[in-house]
């Protein structure tokens, strides 16, 4: 019973007795969605998450977020083709976030500060895992197995670890000191037994490895050059691109000094070699690709596999790129190349959607060069595991990397044949490690997929202000003579600027929009972070479900669902 006072006045805040939440037909919920950078990262890094930590000043936390997926950000920050940036929603607005610059900064910071990986020593009864190959795939697999408490035997045919990172990436892209520091930290982790100069099939057999271990990962890379000819003609002094590139990386020079060279191929090896040849003093370096320069907007299946950044730098350095061209025939004087006939060509889809390479008659032209180098890829060298290799590749189930025909054995990196970058190899190693542990535990491996990213259209972009991206300093083309690193790093201020530019796609920015714009005082702010990682809770006793919070959430983190 309420007594009616004179004039029927009411007491303050008594409306709380009236639960307007019963009016609701839809309720807002916090729905953490994957940012496109996260979904696109081959290594599985959540850039949005570590950019948030950078913005909050937690650099070490940011680095730990990276190394939860990728143990070598100082390397990938330099060499990765950063599909995260191609996917970044901010690209639709002004400029993408320079994510690789932030990653590199954090990687370098970790080396400088000697931050340790959060990995504990495994117990003496921990599972033992064998990893073959210490390229990025093998190292990532070993690292993640160690993180999960395993003991790891890592064998490497070469005297030092690193695989293609060491043998085929020019120093101007990846200084050896950075490579050594990152690798040394992994190889020093407790529980790892690194055996260099140990080759499968020569120093140890597959059966031995399998019998002594609870799981096996193969990351052999691709080192066996493919045979190449143009209309059955093969020049007498043919070297493959990879051979030449490895020679240059190892020795700082290559034997040949022609005036003009044509490199056939559009991958990173081709482009790296082209740039190396320019440094070597070759005046005319031509790159022949049946695809196009991978600029933004070029469909992936029509783009050279080399990264846009590398290709642009190559052009700056004087490399001539012939897009959509094929080699019809070589023009030889005896065994010596004097030129080649090129023809325009393109991949076209037929009625079934299958792509065919089509050469266009009447577009033939002669290119005079003294030398031709095929850089059309390599195959896996199957020595010691011949039974596992099919047509020069390890055929694997795409997500976990388990061999299709050999359950329990995993592979990744270049050996897979369907991709060829350091970041992809790191991702392969990480997923394979998880897969190996699941297999060990007798669990099934359901097919996986990267998370579905939140599209640009689901952000409320009005709340962001245009700001130019920070770019790392780049050595002018005229000064790129030798091994000096071409790209500098971002400084701390630029890194914070980039973190500040992050749209925080799909995650709570703690911007207060929902709290500020709720007409019903039904969003409560909590300093003690809410259990879902946001800074707010909905009070469903009063929330009427109007949807303003969801519509005005800048990051698409709030969603309305039927109540």
């Amino acid at each position, binding site marked *: 019973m309420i007594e009616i006072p004179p004039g029927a006045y009411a007491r303050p805040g008594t*409306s709380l007795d009236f639960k307007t939440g019963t009016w609701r037909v839809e309720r807002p919920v916090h729905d953490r969605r994957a940012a496109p950078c996260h979904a696109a990262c081959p290594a599985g890094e959540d850039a949005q998450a570590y950019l948030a930590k950078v913005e909050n000043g937690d650099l070490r936390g940011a680095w730990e977020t990276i190394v939860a997926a990728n143990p070598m950000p100082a390397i990938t920050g330099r060499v990765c083709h950063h599909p995260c940036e191609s996917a970044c929603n901010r690209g639709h607005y002004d400029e993408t976030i320079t994510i690789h610059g932030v990653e590199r900064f954090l990687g370098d910071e970790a080396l400088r500060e000697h931050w340790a990986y959060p990995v504990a020593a495994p117990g003496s009864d921990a599972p033992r895992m064998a990893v073959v190959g210490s390229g990025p795939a093998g190292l990532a697999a070993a690292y993640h197995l160690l993180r999960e408490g395993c003991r790891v035997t890592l064998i490497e045919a070469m005297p030092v670890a690193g695989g293609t990172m060491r043998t085929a990436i020019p120093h101007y892209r990846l200084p050896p000191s950075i490579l050594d520091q990152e690798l040394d930290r992994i190889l020093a982790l407790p529980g790892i037994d690194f055996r260099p100069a140990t080759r499968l099939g020569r120093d140890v057999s597959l059966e031995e490895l399998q019998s002594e271990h609870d799981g096996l990962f193969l990351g052999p890379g691709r080192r066996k050059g493919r045979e190449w000819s143009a209309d059955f003609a093969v020049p007498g002094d043919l070297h493959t691109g990879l051979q030449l590139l490895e020679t240059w990386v190892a020795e700082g020079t290559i034997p040949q000094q022609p005036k003009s060279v044509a490199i056939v191929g559009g991958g990173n090896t081709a482009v790296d070699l082209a740039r190396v040849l320019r440094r070597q003093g070759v005046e005319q370096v031509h790159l022949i690709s049946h695809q196009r320069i991978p600029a933004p907007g070029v469909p992936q299946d029509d783009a050279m596999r080399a990264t846009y950044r590398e290709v642009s730098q190559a052009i700056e350095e004087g490399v001539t790129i012939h897009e959509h061209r094929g080699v019809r025939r070589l023009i030889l004087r005896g065994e010596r190349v004097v030129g080649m006939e090129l023809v325009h060509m393109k991949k076209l889809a037929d009625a079934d959607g299958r792509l065919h390479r089509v050469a266009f008659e009447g577009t033939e032209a002669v290119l005079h060069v003294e030398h031709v180098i095929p850089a059309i890829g390599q195959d896996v060298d199957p020595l010691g595991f011949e039974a596992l290799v099919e047509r020069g590749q390890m055929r694997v189930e795409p997500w976990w990397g388990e061999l299709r025909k050999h359950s329990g054995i995993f592979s990744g990196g270049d050996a897979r044949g369907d991709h060829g970058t350091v970041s992809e190899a790191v991702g392969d190693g990480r997923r394979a490690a998880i897969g190996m542990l699941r297999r060990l535990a007798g669990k099934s491996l359901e097919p996986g997929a990267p998370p579905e990213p939140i599209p640009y259209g689901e952000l409320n972009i009005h709340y962001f202000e245009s700001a130019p991206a920070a770019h790392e300093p780049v050595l002018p083309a005229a000064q790129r003579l030798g091994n000096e690193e071409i790209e500098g790093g971002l400084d701390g201020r630029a890194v914070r600027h980039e973190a500040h530019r992050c749209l925080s796609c799909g995650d709570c920015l703690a911007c207060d929009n929902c709290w500020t714009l709720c007409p019903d005082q039904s969003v409560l702010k909590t300093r003690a972070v809410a259990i879902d990682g946001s800074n707010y809770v909905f009070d469903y006793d009063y929330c009427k479900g109007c949807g303003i919070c969801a519509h005005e959430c800048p990051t698409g983190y709030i969603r309305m669902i039927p109540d």
Partner: protein
Amino acid sequence: MNEQPLQSLDALRAQQPRFRGLESGHRACQGCGEALAARLATEAAGPDVVIANATGCLEVFTTPWPQSAWRLPWIHSVFGNVAAVAAGMEAALKQQGRATQVLAFAGDGGTFDIGFQALSGMMERGHNVLFICFDNEAYMNTGVQRSGSTPHAAMTTTSPPGAVRMGKRHMKKDILSIIAAHHIPYAATASVAYPSDLRNKVRRAMDTEGASFLQIHSPCPLGWGHDGSLTIEVARLAVQTGLFPIIEMERGELIGTLPIRDPKPVSEYLKLQNRFRHLFADAYRARKELEHLQAIANRNIERFELRGVGIEKYDTEGADTVHRGGDRWA
């Protein structure tokens, strides 16, 4: 997906790092712009204030006895007298030597129409009162009838479009100019779409000695015919198109505007609202009225020099930029 709070919501509610003048449990419709505007205004104004509130939605949805959503001393008297009640409170507090500030709340009917005479008198006498008009451009409480604030061509229940009419025949009353002509120290417009600007103006008005006036554009989802989730979007477009200029006047002189970075076509604003639906018919008279409203927006932009010069920190795009941690709202 649905979070469980770490502490009781009652405790959390009590610890919110802002003053709560208007509590939950009020009975405004979903997405009510006026409720939001009143919440924001009282947050900035409280707690040492007294409020007089004209008849209207705000009064009805906040105080169905025995409940009240207000946490501030508040009185509703009748429809047309809010400025006078506020003036009386101000006179009393002044005579008593108390510093408590007086707010008057009214809708557009209680400001432009029935309450106008009392408002004019209050301002002429220079009472130290902040009069806030929650402008939702029609008589919403009685079921969406046209008022002096209803924009030209808008449909209401008493300005329906038909064979010989295209909604309201007359123009929206230029209330701010009339107010400014009283030579009061501060008069401004604001919008729920720009809450920081709104709260700053409330604070500024309260720091001003004498009568001050704030007209807050407050969309009404029911009366305007838009989804409740679009309240802010609609309010923002009103500003971005130039149909609702955000301006400040001191002693009758224009002293500040929220510049429009890139004016949007009025159709972007109008098409979200049922009250302008008839303007999108495939007919000459519809196109004509659409162009008429565009011309009104253009004239506003020209008259108040609303067109920004490039990118400015406090323009229609920059003024509500969010940041991680969000302290700009606090």
